[in-house]
């Protein structure tokens, strides 16, 4: 058996703080390119004005180190852990959690977490001095001696427009595509379009939601994707944008910048489909340690 590679706690901690420092003040380079492309084809004057504001904001936020969006979200981390590594001390959740809390103070990010979801159950008064962030950590094991961290700051408005449905296995492709298009289009301006759309198909109830989130956050090389799904992504993007909801739901050629699908095997009785939406302030990064 090969010896385990030890990854120091400090390295993981500092990597996460630096990663959050990079993404809170800038969307992914791909998103900025897609916003530029949307502007190039736009004809509506209000939509153009809004897209220009988004691009100006990206520049200013990066320069001034201000959040691109005041909702710096809930932190979602996919940690793909090589089976030949050991993270010193740990557990990983404790390291990630401490890094996120310290990053929140360091960069002046907004406390958007309530520890009691049903607010009337708690008299807890939020004290900004010692408030805590919550982290959604998805762990998976991979062969090898690397630790891959995919980190996102996920805003609440777009998350609220997400949906999951358990279809019958004989449902037509057309019905599934209509469901995805309708979910995005009926959200209107609520998720701050232009949006990015993550779709999870298959797995089971909880797995397809995780796939939808992962599809939004984790880059996949086109060669890894089945051509049927690549074509489906293109069709969905075209259909969503043809509906003309547009920038901030105020009209225009672009409602979605990108659709990404991840699929997995599922039970013969099921066809789970989940849609997770992210706004144009798409704050994600992938890091390998």
């Amino acid at each position: 058996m090969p010896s385990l590679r030890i990854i120091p706690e400090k390295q993981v901690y500092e990597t996460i703080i630096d990663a959050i420092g990079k993404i809170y003040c800038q969307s992914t380079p791909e998103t900025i390119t897609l916003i530029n492309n949307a502007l190039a084809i736009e004809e509506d004057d209000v939509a153009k004005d809004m897209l220009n504001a988004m691009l100006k904001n990206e520049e200013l936020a990066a320069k001034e180190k201000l959040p691109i969006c005041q909702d710096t979200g809930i932190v979602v981390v996919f940690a793909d852990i090589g089976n030949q590594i050991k993270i010193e001390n740990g557990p990983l959740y404790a390291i990630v959690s401490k890094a996120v809390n310290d990053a929140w103070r360091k960069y002046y990010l907004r406390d958007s977490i309530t520890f009691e979801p049903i607010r009337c159950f708690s008299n807890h008064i939020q004290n900004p001095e010692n408030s805590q962030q919550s982290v959604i950590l998805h762990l998976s094991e991979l062969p090898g001696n690397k630790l891959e961290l995919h980190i996102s700051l996920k805003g609440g408005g777009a998350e609220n427009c997400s949906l999951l449905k358990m279809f019958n296995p004989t449902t037509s492709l057309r019905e599934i595509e209509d469901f995805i298009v309708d979910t995005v289009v009926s959200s209107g301006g609520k998720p701050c379009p232009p949006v990015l759309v993550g779709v999870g198909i298959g797995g089971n109830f909880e797995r397809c939601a995780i796939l939808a989130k992962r599809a939004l956050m984790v880059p996949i090389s086109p060669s890894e994707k089945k051509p049927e799904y690549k074509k489906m992504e293109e069709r969905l993007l075209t259909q969503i944008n043809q509906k003309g909801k547009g920038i901030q739901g105020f009209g225009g050629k672009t409602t979605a910048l990108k659709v990404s699908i991840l699929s997995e095997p599922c039970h013969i009785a099921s066809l789970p489909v989940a849609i997770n939406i992210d706004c144009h302030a798409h704050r994600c990064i992938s890091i390998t340690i």
Partner: protein
Amino acid sequence: MRIIKIELPLKSEEIKMFTIRDKLLISGVLYTARDQAHLRLNQLIKEGKPLPFNLADSALFYCGPAPTPPGKVCGAIGPTTSARMDKYTPLLLENGLKVMIGKGERSKEVTNAIRKHRAIYLICVGGISALLSQTVVSCETFCWKELGAEAIYRMEVKDFPGYVAII
């Protein structure tokens, strides 16, 4: 797209002059209010108690600001989804509210109430918070500090951009 500079508070006669999709550059005082503040404002009205500010002179901005970094006037600011405030909005309109700023569509009931009370709903672009923060002249917690980002903040703005969505 018309671009019109306006000063708050707005009167119904001024609101009549605008059309949908006009871009307004707003100067004056905004009060932030999100879900929890709306719940409290509604409770106060129902109990016949005084509100912390005069609704008729005020513009509500559906926003929870980010903390103010050292050396800045305020942190990142931007709209949250207005539809979550729909349930509480007609009562505020009945009590004089004239201007609301947020993002996304409103319910039929809110749309009708806005028209009935000759009020105005503006949308501002979500996710351009660094840019919007540049329009803030001053920002302070006004009341309900214990709500953190959901407290009511008093924000003085100059040329804050909003687009007319419902009048």
